[in-house]
C-alpha cells in the first residue's frame, strides 16, 4: 500500500488526539477565533457547568458582525447589538481571552484579522463560530466553521469531535485571462460543482492558476469553499505564504520561524496520493462572473443572460429557479449587463483586503458613481483602512462618490444599520446571495471588487473589461 498522503491527510493526522473504532476522532485545535454573535451562549454554558477555558492564550476575540461602520465614538446605538458586544467584552475579561474591541486599530472581520496578525499559521487547525472560517485554508491551515456547542467544547477542551472528511481536489490549470480575478474563479468553481458539490469533503485547490494567486486572492477562493458545501478549503503553503506570514505580530519570531518553515515545506500532497473526487477547470475559460439567483451556484458569465428554468430537467431545481427569478425580479433571457443596481457593496471577509480595495480603486479613479447608486466601501480591518488611507485610496473612492466606512461585516449579513430595503438590488463582493441576506427583500448579485466598482459607475451590471 502506498503511504502517499494528501495535504489534508497530513494536517489531520498531526492533530488526532484519539480515534474510536467507529472513526469518531478527537482532534486538537491550535487556534480559535471568537466573535460576539455565536459565543455568548457558549460562555454561559461554561459558567453553568463550572468549567474554565483550557488554553485561553490560543483564542483571539474580535467584535465584527454587528458593529457600526459609521462614527463609533458614541458606542453602539442599537441596544441588542450593544448587549452582544458588551457580553463579549465581559466574557473575554472573565476567561482571560485577548479581545480587539471596537476602538482597537486591529479590530476587523475575524477572518481578515487572523491572517493579518499572524494568528493563522500553516499546518495548524483553526476554528471559529462562523462558516467562512474556511478562509484560513489559504495559508494551509485546516480551518472549520463550527456552531455554538462546538465553540463551548473547544473552549473547555481545546479539541473538537469530528469524523475525517473525504479528500477532494479542484485544479485550475493555466493562467487567468486579464480582468478575471480569484472571485470569478471561485464563482466558476461553485457554478460547476454546485452548493452541495463539496459536502463531506475538504477541498484542496491546486493548479497553476491557484499557485499564481497572491495570499489575498487565495483567501477569496478558500473563503467561499463553504458555499460549495465543503467542510474546509486548503491551499498548500509555499514561498508566497511564508513571505506573507513573516514578521506579523503573532507569527513565530526569528529562529522559531525558520524551524516552522522547514516543517511547513513538508505540507503538500504527495505524488500518487488518492483523492475521492477530482475536478479540474481551465483558467482560460473563466470570464468575469456574476450571480443571477439566490444561491451562490446560480452563476452566469457577465457576457451571458439570465437563464430560463424551462431548460432545466430536474424538477426540484426548476422550481427553485422559478422561485429565485421571482424573488430577484428577473426575466429569463435578460442580458446580465441590462440589470440595473441601486447599491454597491465592497467588503466582507471575501473581498475587503488591501488588494481588493486597490483593484476597485483602479476602476473608480477619475470616474463617478451613477446618480441613483449608493456605494459603500468597507475595509476588512482597521489596519487595512489605515494602509488604504496612506495610499490615498480613500480619496479616490470619496472623490468618485463612494462612501468610505469603518471595518466590520456590514452589509454582508445586514446585522448592523447597513442593509438593503425590500426590492433593492446590489452588486456585492460578499459571499451569499440568499433571500434576505443583505436585508429583508434585498436582491444580491455577487461579483469581484473590480466588477462591483464598474457596476456602481455604470449604474448596472457591466463587464469591467469594457470600461473605457
Amino acid at each position, binding site marked *: 500500500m502506498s503511504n502517499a498522503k494528501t495535504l489534508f491527510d497530513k494536517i489531520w493526522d498531526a492533530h488526532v488526539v484519539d480515534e474510536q473504532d467507529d472513526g469518531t476522532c478527537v482532534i*486538537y485545535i491550535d487556534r480559535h477565533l471568537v466573535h460576539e454573535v455565536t459565543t455568548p451562549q457558549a460562555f454561559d454554558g461554561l459558567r453553568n457547568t463550572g468549567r474554565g477555558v483550557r488554553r485561553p492564550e490560543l483564542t483571539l476575540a474580535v467584535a465584527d458582525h454587528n458593529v457600526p461602520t459609521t462614527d463609533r465614538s458614541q458606542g453602539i446605538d442599537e441596544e441588542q447589538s450593544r448587549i452582544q458586544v458588551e457580553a463579549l467584552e465581559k466574557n473575554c475579561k472573565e476567561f482571560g481571552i485577548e479581545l480587539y474591541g471596537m476602538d482597537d486599530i486591529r479590530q476587523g472581520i475575524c477572518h481578515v484579522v487572523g491572517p493579518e496578525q499572524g494568528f493563522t499559521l500553516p499546518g*495548524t487547525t483553526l476554528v471559529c463560530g462562523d462558516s467562512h472560517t474556511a478562509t484560513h485554508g489559504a495559508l494551509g491551515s485546516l480551518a472549520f466553521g463550527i456552531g455554538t456547542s462546538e465553540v463551548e*467544547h473547544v473552549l473547555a477542551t481545546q479539541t473538537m469531535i469530528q469524523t475525517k472528511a473525504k479528500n477532494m481536489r479542484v485544479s485550475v490549470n493555466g493562467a487567468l485571462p486579464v480582468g478575471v480575478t480569484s472571485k470569478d474563479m471561485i464563482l466558476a468553481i461553485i457554478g460547476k460543482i454546485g452548493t452541495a458539490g463539496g459536502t463531506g469533503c475538504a477541498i484542496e485547490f491546486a493548479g497553476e492558476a491557484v499557485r499564481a494567486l497572491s495570499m489575498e486572492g487565495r483567501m477569496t477562493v478558500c473563503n467561499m469553499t463553504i458555499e460549495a458545501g465543503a467542510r474546509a478549503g486548503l491551499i498548500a503553503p509555499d514561498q508566497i505564504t511564508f513571505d506573507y506570514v513573516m514578521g506579523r505580530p503573532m507569527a513565530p519570531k526569528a529562529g522559531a520561524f525558520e524551524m516552522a518553515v522547514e516543517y511547513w515545506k513538508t505540507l503538500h500532497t504527495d505524488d500518487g496520493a488518492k483523492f475521492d473526487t477530482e475536478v479540474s477547470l481551465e483558467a482560460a475559460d473563466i470570464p468575469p462572473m456574476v450571480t443571477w439567483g439566490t444561491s451562490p451556484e446560480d452563476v452566469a458569465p457577465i457576457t451571458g443572460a439570465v437563464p430560463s428554468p424551462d431548460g432545466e430537467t430536474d424538477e426540484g431545481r426548476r422550481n427553485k429557479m422559478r422561485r429565485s427569478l421571482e424573488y430577484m425580479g428577473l426575466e429569463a433571457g435578460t442580458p446580465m449587463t441590462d440589470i440595473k443596481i441601486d447599491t454597491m457593496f465592497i467588503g466582507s471577509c471575501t473581498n475587503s483586503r488591501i488588494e481588493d480595495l486597490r483593484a476597485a480603486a483602479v476602476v473608480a479613479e477619475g470616474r463617478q458613481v451613477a446618480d441613483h447608486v449608493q456605494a459603500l466601501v468597507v475595509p476588512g480591518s482597521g489596519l487595512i483602512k489605515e494602509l488604504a488611507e496612506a495610499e490615498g485610496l480613500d480619496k479616490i473612492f470619496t472623490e468618485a462618490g463612494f462612501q468610505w466606512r469603518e471595518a466590520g461585516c456590514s452589509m454582508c449579513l*445586514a446585522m448592523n444599520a447597513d442593509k438593503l430595503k425590500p426590492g433593492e438590488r446590489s452588486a456585492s463582493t460578499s459571499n451569499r446571495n440568499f433571500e*434576505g441576506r443583505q436585508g429583508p427583500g434585498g436582491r444580491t448579485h455577487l461579483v469581484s471588487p473590480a466588477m462591483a466598482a464598474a457596476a456602481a459607475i455604470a449604474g448596472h451590471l457591466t463587464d469591467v473589461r469594457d470600461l473605457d
Partner: protein
Amino acid sequence: MDKFTTLTGVAAPLDLINVDTDMIIPARFLKSIKRTGFGKDLFYTLRFDESGNEREEFVLNKSAYRNAEVLIGGKNFGCGSSREHAPWALMDFGIKCVIAPDFADIFYNNSFKNGMLLIKLPQEQVDQLMEDAKSGANATVTVDLEAQEIHRPDGEVIKFDIDPFKKHCLLNGLDDISLTLQKENKIAGFEEARKSQPWL
C-alpha cells in the same frame, strides 16, 4: 440535553431544495444572547409578509401543521451559515426531527448537539414521506431511534442509517464535553508532545 428515543407526531412537508440557514432564521434575529425564544422567528420571511401578518399558504401556518414535530425537507437542507440559532429556532418551534435526502455538514452537527435527530434517506423514500405529510394532521409518523425505523401512517416501515456515536449520544442525552473530558490525559499527552513545535 434531552434524550431522544421515539417520537410520534405530525410531519410537515417543506418541499424546497437548498433551504438555507438565512431562511430558517434571518440574521437580524440573532441578537439574543440566549438559546431560547428563536421559534417565533423561524422561517420568518416564508411565514410572514412585509407587515408581519402570517402568509396563509406557508405550511407551518396551516392549522394541520401548527404543531408539527417532524419536518420533511429537500436536498441540501441547512446549507449556509454555522449559526446554531437555526437548530435552536426549529427546536424552539417544536420540531424534533428533520428528514431529507441530505444535509449541510455544519447544520447536521449542530442539530445533533442539541438533541435534534436528522435522518438522511434516499430521494424516493423522502418523496413518499413528503406525500404522506401532504395529507395532513391525521397522518402522523413515528420515528423510533433505537430500532432505526420510521413508521409511515399506513404502517409501512422505513429503515434508516445513523452514525452509532451520534445515536448513542442522542439516546442517552449525553453531553460531548463531559465525554471528551474523560480523555483529559490523552489531551495533556498530546500537548506535551506538541512542545517540539515551539511556534504553536
